[in-house]
């Protein structure tokens, strides 16, 4: 059916192309003077770029200057062969959807008389951009040096985009001598190699005016936008690396494979975006959620005060990089010094914990005591009420000590969290669902004073769990003490482990509790709270005294990361594989598939994860900028 529709529409395109070339040749012949004027205008437009066509009032703007290179990177990537060899890919190529997509691409290529990648490159060789007005107007602009190709593309769009009710072809009007096509909800305009698709006539007119007569009052000249472009400029090292690789390829007479391509650069005027209602809830002065405040509090408070946000998305053969940047000023930081650090010191995360089979690691700077005590300034009334109740209960648990002041206040601001793949192969009973091990690591300000307190509370907590567990028929936990030798001397561990019932001792499908052996460890000024004894032992064994740590505040730089997250794909794959049966069962129940179908789908998920390498996010602040970077590494 789709094929039939496509063929009919192709016939319409052919008619339009023929009519254009037969019926309007005189309109296409300009005199020499007009041609010279047009060339000058084209030059000006090219210099200003696509941003030069949009008004300064634009709330958000995104552009792609290098679509051709991005497509080349994807098409030439070594992973392509591996993906094409996947059974799921083979199955997809046999589906009706794939056949329809192929037919559509063939029709497109036939009309354009070039391959799809070539057409994408040609149609966007001077860029693609999209802008959103605070009024909701959206304009998409494509610029090409090949006017004839753009004309074919325009005719293709006119054939396929929905028309006004009852119309077979688009209604045509003129504006300043330019033909404007009125579609169902859109207008479409082509001026030489520039094509505009827009949903609002007023915005369309403004853009057409600049297509005809560029001026100095466009987005391209707006100081905020220019500053955003500067923030997004690729790092010098990255540009040099790319240039060197391309030069080497040219010297070796090899085809030049692009090394890096900027897929998207985007700019958001946060004041204008506010009128669109974007993220107004998230940018509230006081957060409703304690967890959201801990993770994003500083970022959101910065976005509340800054005027713009810049975003870039880069592709290279080895990774996909997302970068978000905005201005930052130190006087915007109060009352969130718990997040940004005090004026005299850098708020720098400790290094990520390195372990074999590491699944993830998170390190961050957060002064939890200050956050707790200042919660009235940071959180909504409802959240503060909840925290007050928790404070009262926790203070009781800690023998009447003030939880915010005395307990959280005894911790330094660097927090390290790590997760690792557990190896239950030698363990009995072995849990049916295998969870990763995870731990939190803190440094104590006064270990001699507070270790005893934490140890006692941990023991009480395990006792409490035993009472609750006994009431619910769950296995009981056994407490123990161990000492191990670590890098910073003898470490002490308070261990606990679930006691298996007689018929569960040899079980390989034991309850989920058998993933846990909660353990508290102390090594020098380091305190580790771990879900398993094994992980706690490894952490205390590799702990160094604080003076040798990179998170020693004196050695830190203001632009070192405030928060870092690293996720390892191969460990994620291991965890998924260990729980493959559970995932297959869930899939069978949620979709009613056969075991083979579900296994194939989960297999595809595992293969997909296997194509990735790692994922890293870091958040940095200095006196002028906030930068959030995310880097997704793929297998070479």
């Amino acid at each position, binding site marked *: 059916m789709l094929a039939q529709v496509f063929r009919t529409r192709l016939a319409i395109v052919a008619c339009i192309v023929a009519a254009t070339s037969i019926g309007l040749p005189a309109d296409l012949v300009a005199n020499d003077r007009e041609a010279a004027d047009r060339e000058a205008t084209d030059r000006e437009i090219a210099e200003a770029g696509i941003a030069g066509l949009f008004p300064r009032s634009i709330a958000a703007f995104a552009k792609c200057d290098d679509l051709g290179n991005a497509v080349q990177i994807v098409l030439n990537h070594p992973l392509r062969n591996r993906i094409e060899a996947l059974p799921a890919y083979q199955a997809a190529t046999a589906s009706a959807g794939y056949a329809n997509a192929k037919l559509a691409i063939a029709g497109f290529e036939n009309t354009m008389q070039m391959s799809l990648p070539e057409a994408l490159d040609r149609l966007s060789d001077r860029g693609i951009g999209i802008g959103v007005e605070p009024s909701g107007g959206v304009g998409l602009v494509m610029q090409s040096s090949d006017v004839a190709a753009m004309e074919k593309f325009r005719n293709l769009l006119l054939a396929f985009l929905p028309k006004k009710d009852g119309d077979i072809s688009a209604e045509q009007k003129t504006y300043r001598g330019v033909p404007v096509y009125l579609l169902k909800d859109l207008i479409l305009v082509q001026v030489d190699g520039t094509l505009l698709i827009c949903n609002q006539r007023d915005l369309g007119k403004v853009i057409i005016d600049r297509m005809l007569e560029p001026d100095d009052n466009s987005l391209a000249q707006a100081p905020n936008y220019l500053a955003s472009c500067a923030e997004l400029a690729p790092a010098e090292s990255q540009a040099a690396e790319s240039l060197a690789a391309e030069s080497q390829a040219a010297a070796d007479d090899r085809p030049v494979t692009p090394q890096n391509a900027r897929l998207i650069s985007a700019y958001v005027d946060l004041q204008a975006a506010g009128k669109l209602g974007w993220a107004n809830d998230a940018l509230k002065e006081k957060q409703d959620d304690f967890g959201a405040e801990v993770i994003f509090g500083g970022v959101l408070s910065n976005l509340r005060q800054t005027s713009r946000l810049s975003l870039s998305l880069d592709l290279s053969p080895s990774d996909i990089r997302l970068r978000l940047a905005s201005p930052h000023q130190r006087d915007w930081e109060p009352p969130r010094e718990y997040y940004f650090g005090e004026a005299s010191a850098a708020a720098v995360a400790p290094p990520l914990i390195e372990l074999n089979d590491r699944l993830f690691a998170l390190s961050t700077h957060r002064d939890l005591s200050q956050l707790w005590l200042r919660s009235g300034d940071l959180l909504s009334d409802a959240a503060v009420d909840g925290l007050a109740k928790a404070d009262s209960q926790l203070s009781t648990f800690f023998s009447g000590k003030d939880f915010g002041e005395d307990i959280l206040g005894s911790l330094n601001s660097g927090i390290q969290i790590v997760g690792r793949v557990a190896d239950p192969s030698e363990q009995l009973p072995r*849990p*049916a*669902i295998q969870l990763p091990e995870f731990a939190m690591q803190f440094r104590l300000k006064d270990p001699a004073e507070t270790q005893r307190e934490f140890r006692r509370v941990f023991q009480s907590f395990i006792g409490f769990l035993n009472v609750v567990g006994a009431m619910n028929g769950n296995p009981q936990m056994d407490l123990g003490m161990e000492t191990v030798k670590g890098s910073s001397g003898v470490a002490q561990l308070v261990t606990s482990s679930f006691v298996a*019932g*007689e*018929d569960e001792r040899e079980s390989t*499908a034991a*309850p*989920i509790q058998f993933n846990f052996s909660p353990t508290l460890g102390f090594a020098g000024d380091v305190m580790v709270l771990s879900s398993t004894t094994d992980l706690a032992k490894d952490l205390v064994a590799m702990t160094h005294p604080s003076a040798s740590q990179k998170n020693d505040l004196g050695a830190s730089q203001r632009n070192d990361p405030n928060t870092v997250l690293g996720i390892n794909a191969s460990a994620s794959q291991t965890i998924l594989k260990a729980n493959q*049966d*559970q995932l*297959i*069962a869930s899939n*069978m*129940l*949620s*979709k*009613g*598939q*056969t*075991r083979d179908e579900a296994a194939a789908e989960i297999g595809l998920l595992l293969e997909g994860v296997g194509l990735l390498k790692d994922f890293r996010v870091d958040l940095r602040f200095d006196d002028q900028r906030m930068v959030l970077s995310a880097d997704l590494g793929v297998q070479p």
Partner: protein
Amino acid sequence: MRAVDAQWAWSPYVPSAGAPWDRRRAAHLYRRAGLGADAPTLDAALRMTPAEVVDSLFRAGPDADRFDRSAAALANATLAFNDPKRLSAAWVYRLAFTPEPLRENMTLFWHGHFATSADKVDDAKLMWRQNELLRRHALGDFKELAQRIAQDPAMLIYLDSAINRKAHPNENFARELMELFCLGEGHYSEGDVLELARCFTGWEIKNDRFRKNRYQQDTGEKCVLGVRGKWDGEDAVDVVLQQPSVELFLARKWYRYFIADEPAPSDEFLQPIAQTFREHDLETAPAIGQLLRSSWFFSEHAIARKIKSPVNLVIGMLRSLSCTTNMDQVATSLIDIGQGLFYPPNVKGWEGGRDWINSSTLLGRSNLFAKILDDKTTRFGGTTLAGYLASLDKHDAQAAIDFFESLLLAVPLDGETKRDLLQAAEQIGGDFERSLRAVLHGIVSLPQCQIA
């Protein structure tokens, strides 16, 4: 019914001009015994004699072992969460796809007969063990099943009989064994309950396993149902099973399950089935087989004489249209409309019949189908409903209505209802898939579709 000759009623059905072996009767057999059948299964059935089709329902097909392993692995995987509701979804999966639908249907029957609720047992592993026990003996020896169920941890926990001491014999299990499981009301006295309870003293559940505590066992002489002896629990179950009311009690329950909710048949009418059951030493399959092969089963006295249970309604639709969907959602919705698997309402199980239907459950049934048909995971024969119907050469709404009618309804639709359905489909217009799903939703929500 008094005028009906029981001899004729329970004799094997012989197709005739008045009662031909046609698609309607084949669909009736599968709806009642086989949880529903798709069009190719019905076509294949019509190429066999009715007796051959009934025989095939008792045989495990070539795929049965493979499916059994896969379904058991699925259930075992859900046990890791110790959530009986997940286990309930695993059973829905099994009901929807099993190649042994009669065995599964009988497992469901025994689940209602030996009703045990996860609400009280609160242990998915024990509920699953009981479910496997019911499945293993679903078409087998009732004596063995009764003995096993008497020692089943989930059952004993449910009936508060996990601890039974000689100083305080627990009467619950003893009473239900006679009243609900084997004999029925009026076939025992209160004295029998007390004496029978003494036989089960010392029976305990420890660490989820059955055990006999010899120090708590009453070893004295008991008199159960007029028989004296130093019985322990196993002996006592045997004594109960020797009572002549056992076979009639179960024949009546099977009649109601497979043939008609009402009117209730007389003891005389049921006697041939009861007799077959006893003659085969309380083996279930011969009696069920006689019932399903009978002239009565294929007569107008049985067709469209039952209100579909929620499970029969939903699983019937899934199986009839080779439909796959979100089983978690189906399992949860079955609880909402009164037949949550592993969640019978009380020790008597589901009353069934007219109790299935009230204004709330009728709306719930319709809403459940709306959820299924709106769910993006729902597929028919692995594709869209339009694609599935096209593969069966049904290309328009009219053909779809006729097709759904032949598979899902025991009573034909009148012209006006068909016109309304067609009109509803036309009003939706353009999106053929949507209009087909709306027609299907309309049909499964009709009062006619609530009857089997």
